[in-house]
């Protein structure tokens, strides 16, 4: 068994270098495709964290009557906090509301000063786990006596959910199409490398080599092409990482800074797994047509 693995690895290594032009062409194709894939992956991650950020910004704003007591406020705050859909609750008092207003509209500040009472209502600003929960929380709030009104952002929320769904679906479809194209091109490149060695395969069959002895060297060779392609891709990504990060943070603006290290690790893992996986599958498929006879 060990001898068999050693044999297959040795043959894979020899096979790679013997037909080095073909092997390097396969590796180059692999690098190109993996670069494309990781570009998409990074774009996708950026898009997703932007969406996450936007989602987290969705707030339900409920205005209270002036009759609401501080007891009412405490009650409602703890009730809201107990709801599973709610991530945070902030109370904005009448005074705070006025201060914010004056800050935002310094031009009309004097006008407000001249009013006998503070016309602005107190409010709750409630952050949601998922914008889709908006209706639940709004309905609950409308049922409360102290709530005067709930800001109606229903339309905005449903539009946003629609956009998020479209972006997710399109993203997944594009990734799938790219992955399949990659697989197709790689399989064909590897097939060319296998065809170039069909004479050798024929001799192996004629002298009574079992299928495993014919297949595994090619599978290891494919895995080697995938590994090499993935390592080169990761190397290139590391090289262009700094300018790319600048570009991305400029583009997405809100990408959380500490996420990029994790994104890099994920991309590296996916590139490695995809490279080796495609190499193995490509060789397996290519060599299978020779063994079926």
């Amino acid at each position, binding site marked *: 068994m060990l001898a068999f693995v050693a044999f297959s690895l040795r043959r894979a290594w020899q096979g790679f270098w013997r037909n080095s032009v073909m092997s390097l062409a396969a590796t180059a194709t692999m690098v190109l495709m993996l670069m494309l894939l990781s570009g998409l992956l990074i774009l996708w991650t950026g898009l997703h964290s932007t969406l996450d950020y936007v989602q987290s910004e969705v707030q339900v704003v409920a205005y209270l009557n002036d009759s609401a007591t501080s007891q009412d406020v405490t009650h409602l705050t703890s009730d809201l906090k107990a709801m599973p859909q709610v991530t945070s609750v902030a109370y904005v008092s009448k005074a705070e509301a006025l201060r914010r207003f004056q800050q935002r509209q310094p031009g009309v500040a004097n006008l407000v000063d001249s009013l006998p009472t503070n016309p602005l209502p107190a409010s709750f600003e409630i952050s949601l786990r998922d914008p889709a929960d908006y209706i639940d929380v709004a309905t609950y709030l409308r049922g409360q006596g102290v709530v005067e009104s709930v800001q109606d952002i229903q339309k905005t929320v449903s539009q946003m959910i629609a956009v998020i769904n479209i972006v997710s679906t399109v993203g997944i479809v594009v990734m799938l199409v790219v992955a399949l194209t990659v697989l197709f091109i790689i399989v064909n490149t590897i097939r060319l490398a296998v065809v170039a060695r069909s*004479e050798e395969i024929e*001799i192996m069959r*004629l002298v*009574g080599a079992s299928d495993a*002895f014919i297949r595994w060297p090619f599978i290891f060779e494919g895995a080697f092409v995938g590994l090499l392609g993935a390592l080169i891709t990761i190397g290139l990504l590391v090289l262009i990482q700094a300018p790319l990060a600048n570009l991305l943070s400029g583009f997405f603006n809100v990408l959380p800074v500490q996420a990029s290290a994790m994104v890099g690790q994920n991309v590296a893992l996916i590139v490695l797994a995809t490279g080796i996986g495609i190499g193995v599958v490509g060789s397996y498929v290519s060599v299978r047509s020779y063994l079926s006879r």
Partner: protein
Amino acid sequence: MARSHPTDSTADGLPVLSLRGVTKTYPNGKSALRDVTLSVPEGDFVFLVGPSGAGKSTLIRLLIREELATKGKVMLEGRDLARLNRRDVPQIRRRIGIVFQDFKLLPNKSVRDNVAFALEVTGTPRSRIAPAVDRVLRVVGLAAQADQRPAELSGGEQQRTAIARALVHDPRLFIADEPTGNLDPLISWEIIQLLLRINEMGVTVLMATHNAEVVTALRKRVVGLEDGRVVRDETGAAYHRED
């Protein structure tokens, strides 16, 4: 069935190979063999002769199970090749040494490595490979050229490399398809001498050829094919090229 293990049967004097009513029709409708019946006992030396297109190579492809018979039975050492499991085919092929007219040598490997290749790819331990290769290279007389590549060899030497590779598994049956086709008469004669020596070592030999001179001189068993049919099967007779 009294016999429990069909592979033991050759020891009882059963034929190494036998064809019974074998017809081979290729997918394009061409019938290369028609109702061929033939039996070769262990230790025999058989010439398979016939004009181009008679079906000689087809018969050989059936014996190594490159192709399956359309009709009839092909038996090798008592085993029906049509019933053979796909995974048992390599085992059968190791019991047959085969040499093709185009040699099928790997151009980037030395003589020694070409011969060793047959053992490597069948899982022979490395320690056993070198002695076995040296032995067959001595048998075919190529010990001195062991480190040369096929391109640095004469046609006869290439042929002997192919023969060495076919011998290295210690086959029971040795098949040569037109082994003298491209060689000049003297070299052809050397190759024939080598096959006779292999036969003397107890290996059954089947040789397809056009070479009338050789067949006439040796007075061995001759099976003649014509248009896919056996037209003669006799021992010690002369053969005149029909085409």
